[in-house]
């Protein structure tokens, strides 16, 4: 096990025993795992450009010095290359996302493992050190002999993250592409955790991540982020991209967010969106935020009241995606009027041929779109609801308020 702190500054000796310089930087060609060190950059004297040593030219590696298999005259000057990840400059002391621990951490040191491939040694980036032992090494390296320091380190608790669980932050979107950082690993995180991570980052890094994430992941994370930050993130993205993300968000969350934007921006975004989605959102925007209409989502499953359980199950199975907090389906007549509510639990245990009307919850509860928040909360509390259908003046089903919205209302009030 070798550490970056220990490698930096090591003397490099060429094939004829002459000193070629000191290690100033390690470069990795790609962030794909496992990452092998592709190049050493050497410095001779201050101010002079760095010399590049492809790692194939290294013949021996020890904690005292590095030996090359070529003469120093053969070495070429380093040509800056944006696609190379420079470990000291781009990684050491910078922040990264610890995907396993679901948080933003700062890099204290990097550790490498040695591996013999085709007769020559390769150096592989194995772990990122974010703990006390790394801090101690950074502080005391060079001031204490190496063996003493190693002994001291073994007494404190070290914290390491395996390289494959590291997500790099790069504020410049172009460089991000060149370094091949896709943030794919972030997809596995729960949107709420991802949102917490986003809150901790600087605006530019946040923007870079949102540019790279796929629409669905971006939308899920954005829904969980505090309102003020949502606005600034959406503001920083391109209009068409912002519209794509909004389309993927649950309609009620998207409408709430649009309501916070300047009228001009929200109109522009609505124009960029899919016609149907935009019409739905436009309708939602027409209701005051603290009314049933403002709180509801238009994502729900409605089914003709004449259908049976089998038809309903098939319909649900065939749906491209299911609503958030899906707890009940709604029965409607041919005009779209609300006839009844069937809890999913009822649907699961019932025989396939049972008519849906037999499974209806009693009494039939619904709320007019204009009703204030307090009335919804009261109904949820009284009847222990998970969801409540919202209707217009003609009893036509237009949306659903789900229990997660009620939790937000209550939390805002307390």
């Amino acid at each position, binding site marked *: 096990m070798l550490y970056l702190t220990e490698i930096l500054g090591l003397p490099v000796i060429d094939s004829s025993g002459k000193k070629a310089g000191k290690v100033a930087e390690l470069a990795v060609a790609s962030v794909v795992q496992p990452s092998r060190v592709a190049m050493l950059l050497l410095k001779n004297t201050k101010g002079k450009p760095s010399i590049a040593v492809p790692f194939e030219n290294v013949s021996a590696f020890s904690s005292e010095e590095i030996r090359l298999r070529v003469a120093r005259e053969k070495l070429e000057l380093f040509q800056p290359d944006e696609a190379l990840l420079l470990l000291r400059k781009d990684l050491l002391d910078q922040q990264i996302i610890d995907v396993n621990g679901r*948080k933003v951490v700062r890099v204290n040191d990097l550790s490498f493992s040695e591996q013999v491939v085709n007769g020559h040694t390769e150096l592989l980036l194995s772990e990122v050190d974010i703990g006390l032992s790394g*801090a101690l090494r950074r502080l005391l390296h060079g001031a204490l002999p190496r063996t003493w320091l190693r002994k001291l380190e073994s007494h404190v608790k070290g914290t390491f993250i395996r390289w494959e669980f590291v997500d790099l932050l790069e504020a410049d979107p172009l460089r991000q592409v060149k370094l091949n950082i896709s943030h794919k690993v972030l997809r596995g995180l729960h949107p709420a955790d991802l949102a917490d991570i986003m809150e901790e980052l*600087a605006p530019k890094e946040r923007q870079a991540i949102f540019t790279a994430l796929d629409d669905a992941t971006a939308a899920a994370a954005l829904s969980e982020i505090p309102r003020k930050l949502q606005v600034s993130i959406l503001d920083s993205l391109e209009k068409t991209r912002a519209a794509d993300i909004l389309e993927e968000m649950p309609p009620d969350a998207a409408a709430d967010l649009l309501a916070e934007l300047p009228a001009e921006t929200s109109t522009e975004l609505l124009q960029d969106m899919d016609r149907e989605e935009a019409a739905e959102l436009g309708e939602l925007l027409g209701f005051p935020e603290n009314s049933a209409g403002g709180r509801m989502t238009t994502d729900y499953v409605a089914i003709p009241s004449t259908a049976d359980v089998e038809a309903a199950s098939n319909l649900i199975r065939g749906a491209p995606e299911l609503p958030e907090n899906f707890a009940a389906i709604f029965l409607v007549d041919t005009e779209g009027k609300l006839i009844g509510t069937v809890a999913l639990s009822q649907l699961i245990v019932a025989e396939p041929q049972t008519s849906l009307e037999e499974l209806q919850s009693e009494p039939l509860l619904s709320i007019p779109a204009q009703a204030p928040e307090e009335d919804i909360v009261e109904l949820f509390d009284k009847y222990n609801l998970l969801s409540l259908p919202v209707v217009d003046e003609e009893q036509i089903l237009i949306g659903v308020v789900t229990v997660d919205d009620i939790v937000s209302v209550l939390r805002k009030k307390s």
Partner: protein
Amino acid sequence: MNFLKRWKTHILIFLAVIGPGFITANVDNDAGGIYTYSLAGARYGYTLLWTLIPITFVLIVVQEMSARLGAVTGKGLADLIREEFGFRITFFLMLVLTVANLANVMAEFAGVASSMAIFGISKYISVPVVAFFVWLLVVRGTYKSVEKVFLFACSFYVCYIISGVLAKPDWIEAAQAVVRPTIHMETGYLIMLVGMIGATVAPWMQFYLQSAIVEKGVGQKQYAESRLEVIVGCLVMVGVTFFIIVACAATIHTNGRQDIVDAADAAIALRPLAGDYASLLFAFGLFNASVFAASILPLATAYSVCEGLGFEAGVNKKFREAPVFYWLYTLLIVIGGGLILIPGIPLVLVSYFSQVANGFLLPFVLVFLLLLVNRVDLMGGFKNSRGYNLIAGSTVAVLVVLTLLLLGLEIF
């Protein structure tokens, strides 16, 4: 009713315009600041007033740089120092910052002790009670709701303005002192100069202001507003400083006492306004300022250190998630308050020397601030102009020269 309502809207408007700049400026007029300015007026009369002009420039330039750095990079000062200068430099800077801030925390508890002494409450009661209150306020996360109360109580500083006028100071002499620099080559005077600078441009302010700007989400677009707010905050603060010095000069210095050893002495400056109630008024103002700063300083220090060194930080985290943060925060309060409980410790001098310590540390922080704010890759078009660098650079030079002079005078 109508009147009350109008009052309410006024307060609301006031609360709406205040932001990071204004809050930082007000916290800066803490116990250490009040005692240092009072001592300046009491010992040297009007003669130090000239320093306020250069100090105002420096204060605005420095605060504006911190705010700009925060708005453009979206990162705190400790974060940036770590990212650009590495672990070792950050470690030592944070160590020194912690020590200087501990001195400041002591000054706040000295303020609590001396103001409560006027009400006849022993420091062995007032300091532990306030320390516990402050600790709880932050750990429980209720600080934000109390902040506005502190800020409102800061209108107490208006008393100094009224009292300064009522004391009938020699305005001509004061005006001359503002524009005529005088320098004495004696240790006491030079220490006072360093203390004056350290009291107005305290190093913790740069860290605190920059973090506050980042946390508020001020970006490049909203920056013009924030800059105005920062500048107004600085001007208000220096205005208060001016009147504290004038009031003390006109009441304490001219009457031949020329020194301040406890809160009752410093309160004499408010006599023209409040007569026999001057002590009570001063005690109230000092108490508020001390508790306000005591709630911010230890927290800001813990945040900076943990950010810079890469430990988890935040009052929304649990103790076991962010142990270093909570321990540091708790220890700053316990040690800062605990040292004040030493019998016979001179409270006014403790406050004064904390500001001198600020003055010694300031050039180090300024150098890093300057290096960062001149980086094109970080700041782009927002990097420093030459005039800014000149003012900030000269401040560093002056502080270094003063420090060396002081060392020289001590040795020879």
